[in-house]
């Protein structure tokens, strides 16, 4: 076990997989000579050279398509979007070409590619630079969507994504890049796609969450513990396909659930998850599922306003008390 930053864990995942498999390469804006706009790919150009660590022009739609084309003939590209907010100009390539290629070709062409980059309401970046695309991509059959919350998951999940033979939308969180944590050194340490993780065990109420909101949720769980309430925190990790089994196991145990996410509320991941939980175990629920989400507004620049948008520990605690019918 080494203690790594989340960003170092991502780098370790890419580095190990590139050492393991010649077909893997990294492409994106400023990933090579600049060592990454967020320093995720620091040093990788020196190690792998310019053939495998490739700086691109600001042409997301173009190089997303280049990645897909290369994947169709057997390479295994990692395409970095500097942030996912810049991925919307490439939306068509992901939703039409990456997601549909195998199906439209009757199984002849698969697309083993990872699209990755950070996202989130990261701090006074304004509306154009604070997008959270997870619900949009999770809506689309043919895509896999993963969002790690810890350095260990960042490494294990990204390695699994790179080894996947299908297109993966891998969404990191800008504000987690500097987090530190224990990370297994095992070069075959993989966090399987489609497996959630119980980050804290509990018996009274379940929190379903992912990415940065896992940290917020764990803080809220601490506070509730001090009030004698046992909160289970389930980190969804893979948003598509969803690990409904782990989710239902927890909800059937606690009979109460709160969903915490940084995305917008309407038709968001939380809505998708809640709908499936109700559909599966309606009679097991002793209270309606409550959701703590980003406020339903564009993201403002002003820090106070921005802070009021993001799920806070207080809002999570209030939601927990609500489903527990506690005042």
């Amino acid at each position, binding site marked *: 076990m080494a203690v790594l930053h989340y960003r170092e864990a991502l780098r370790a995942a890419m580095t190990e997989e590139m050492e393991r498999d010649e077909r893997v*390469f990294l492409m994106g804006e400023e990933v090579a000579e600049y060592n990454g706009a967020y320093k995720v790919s620091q040093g990788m150009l020196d190690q792998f050279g310019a*053939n495998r660590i490739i700086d*691109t*022009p600001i*042409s997301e*739609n*173009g*190089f*997303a*398509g*280049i*990645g*897909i*084309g*290369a*994947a*169709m*003939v*057997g*390479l295994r590209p990692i395409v970095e979007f500097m942030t996912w907010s810049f991925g919307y100009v490439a939306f*068509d*390539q992901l939703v*039409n*070409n990456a997601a549909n*290629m*195998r*199906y*439209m*070709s*009757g*199984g*002849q*062409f*698969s697309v*083993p590619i990872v699209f990755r980059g950070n996202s989130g309401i990261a701090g006074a970046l304004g509306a154009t630079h604070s997008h959270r695309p997870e619900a949009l991509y*999770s809506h689309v*059959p*043919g895509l*896999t969507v993963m969002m790690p919350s810890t350095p260990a998951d960042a490494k294990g999940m990204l390695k699994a994504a790179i080894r*996947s*033979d*299908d297109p993966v939308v891998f969404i990191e969180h800008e504000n987690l890049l500097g987090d530190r944590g224990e990370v297994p050194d095992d070069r075959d340490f993989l966090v399987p*796609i*489609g497996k959630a993780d119980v980050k804290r065990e509990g018996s009274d109420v379940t929190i379903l969450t992912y990415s940065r909101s896992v940290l917020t949720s764990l803080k809220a769980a601490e506070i509730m513990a001090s009030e004698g309430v046992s909160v289970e925190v389930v980190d969804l990790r893979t948003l*598509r*396909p*969803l690990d409904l089994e782990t989710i239902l196991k927890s909800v059937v145990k606690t009979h109460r659930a709160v969903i915490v996410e940084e995305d917008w509320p309407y038709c968001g991941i939380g809505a*998708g998850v809640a709908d*499936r939980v109700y559909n599966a175990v309606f009679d097991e629920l002793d209270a309606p599922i409550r959701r703590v989400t980003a406020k339903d507004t564009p993201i403002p620049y002003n820090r106070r306003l921005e802070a009021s948008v993001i799920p806070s520990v207080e809002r999570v605690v209030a939601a927990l008390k609500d489903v527990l019918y506690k005042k």
Partner: protein
Amino acid sequence: SRNQALGWLRQMLLIRRFEERSAMLYQNQKIGGFCHLYSGQEAVAVGSIGALREDDYVITAYRDHGHALARGMDPKFAMAEQLGKAAGCSKGKGGSMHFFDADKGFLGGHAIVGSHLPLAAGVAFASKYRNDQKVTICYFGDGAMDQGALHEAFNMASLWKLPVIYVVENNGMSMGTQLHRHSCLIDLTIRGGTAYGMPGVAVDGNDIEQMAKITLEAANRARAGEGPTFIEAQTYRFRGHSMSDPMKYRSKEEAEKAKERDPIVLYESLLKERGWINGAALEEMHEKIKVEIDEAIEFAENAPEPELSALYEDISVAPYLPQE
């Protein structure tokens, strides 16, 4: 060579026949969705693909029957695809606009205008990455000149000297819009070549041997590591944009005049002049093709529909888990 020439003529005739019968099948509602016929443009695909190696890559847009057949796809599987059968080249899941044939290096069949231009650069990128000496050829229409995807793909293809040949099939129409109404310049070699520092060559797309010659030069450049080439193949589509296009924008006269430059007629007479084929042999060739297409249709009509369970197959390599 004579053999090659006769082979090319045969392929053009095969495509023409395939399209004529496709039109009938569409009218009888055996073929559904959108169906875009290649009639009139055969020399572009046959001549250019004819100049390439068997292991080079071919990718095109939704008007894809001609390129697939020129690449050697069996008309049986092409026709079966249009009829949505499991034996189709895309198992009946792609349809007329989404033909694929991995064995032949035929990478589709892409129906979002412009969206396959970056894919072509990516396939060429893979060839450069592996240094496998393969060339990728990518076809698209004059209307696709206006999509941002072209701009991004061309800049990177040129910047990185990727072994790709971009062929715009300039048939003068973007659906119902004439070139001068959708393109700021009429000379597409400026927009596609000069603009990106790559050679841009205009060629008579109805002259199959010219088409082959220019393509071969481009392929040689690509293999020599000199990067991409842009080819403007000037041609004409005889049919409507798709089967549902009444072609109100076109006069009888225009259509008649165009027929005089039918690439097949032109090539037939050229080969006759050269004494490489005579009327009788030509007759026989037409006959053979007629039979081949009849057989393809028979095969397609008798081929089984996909099982309903096929709906959830071929979505992902990993076992697919529907989120329902």
